[in-house]
């Protein structure tokens, strides 16, 4: 099981960059992370297709502490149904002040990963429950 207290550092990192350098800098941090740190993930998705996307996220959420997330491959792509986000849950249980734009990192990071993998990404919701979809570029929505 991973060390959930690291969510505190993630939240604090977003707040530090946002409050010190501004929102655009925070967005650049997220997209840069996706292009540099997550480049191998994007390569896996590009090579392995949607089945690799499903496998990656199913394994990923299984290794996070807590939360309730269902990952499935459907006709429209890989659907990630976040019923109880492990990060938001841990931060709330720890009585931490969550930076208001915390959930936006999923949009910016995953969109940049999907772009590199020649896929598309969409997200609706936030605040602990959301729905995310990775699909093929030009595929059904």
């Amino acid at each position, binding site marked *: 099981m*991973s*060390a*959930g*207290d*690291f*969510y*505190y*550092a*993630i*939240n*604090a*990192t977003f*707040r*530090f960059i946002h409050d*010190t*350098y501004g929102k655009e*800098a925070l967005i*650049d*941090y997220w997209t*840069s*992370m996706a292009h*540099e*740190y997550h480049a191998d993930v994007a390569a896996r998705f590009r090579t392995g297709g949607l089945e690799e996307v499903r496998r990656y996220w199913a394994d*990923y*959420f299984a*290794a*996070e*502490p807590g939360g309730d997330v269902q990952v499935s491959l459907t006709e429209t792509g890989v659907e990630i149904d*976040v019923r109880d*986000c*492990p*990060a938001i849950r841990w931060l709330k249980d*720890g009585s931490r002040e969550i930076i208001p734009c915390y959930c936006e*990192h*999923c949009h910016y*990071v995953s969109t940049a990963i999907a772009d590199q993998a020649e896929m598309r990404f969409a997200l609706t919701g936030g605040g602990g429950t959301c729905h995310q979809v990775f699909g093929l570029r030009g595929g059904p929505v």
Partner: protein
Amino acid sequence: MIGVQDFIGYYDWTFEYLRRNFGEPAVRDFWVRAISQDSQTHARELIVGKGFDGMYEYWAHTLEMEEAGYTFDRGDDYFRIDMVDCPSKGHLIKRGLAAYHDYCEHCIGWIKPLMDDAGFMIEHEHNHAGQCWWEMRRAADRLTTPPPDRGPHDVRNLPNWQQAQHDVFLNSERLEDDTDDVGAAV
């Protein structure tokens, strides 16, 4: 989602991102304001409030959670940690990750400001290979040399302790002349 299972990898990457875009002082500022004063408020509350007992409570929780290889030692005037297998640096070494030039520096970067505020000083040495020792003492208890050999659990007695570059801190200040044997057990 950015999760916690691979946190160490992008924590290291974040240091380098900040250095590259905003300069080395931004990394130091990040360790103080984001980590010491924001992320680690739970450590701060315990150590400022309970001193040595709070240190034990905090590190017993966090090092178990991180599955570290470590021992604690407690004397009348110190609280000591010997880290034989740092999970954080070990994660990077195993995966060949080293985005930032001095990952180990982040620990003193956030712990020193906390100890300053709590009224403690730090004696510390790390070898950049996943091994280090820490002794926290009350601010009035200054040392003139590193603490003595603490016994079999003292990481300085390990045969592979003397490897890589050593950084040494005495009374919370870095010893610039940190030659290989300055912190060796005697």
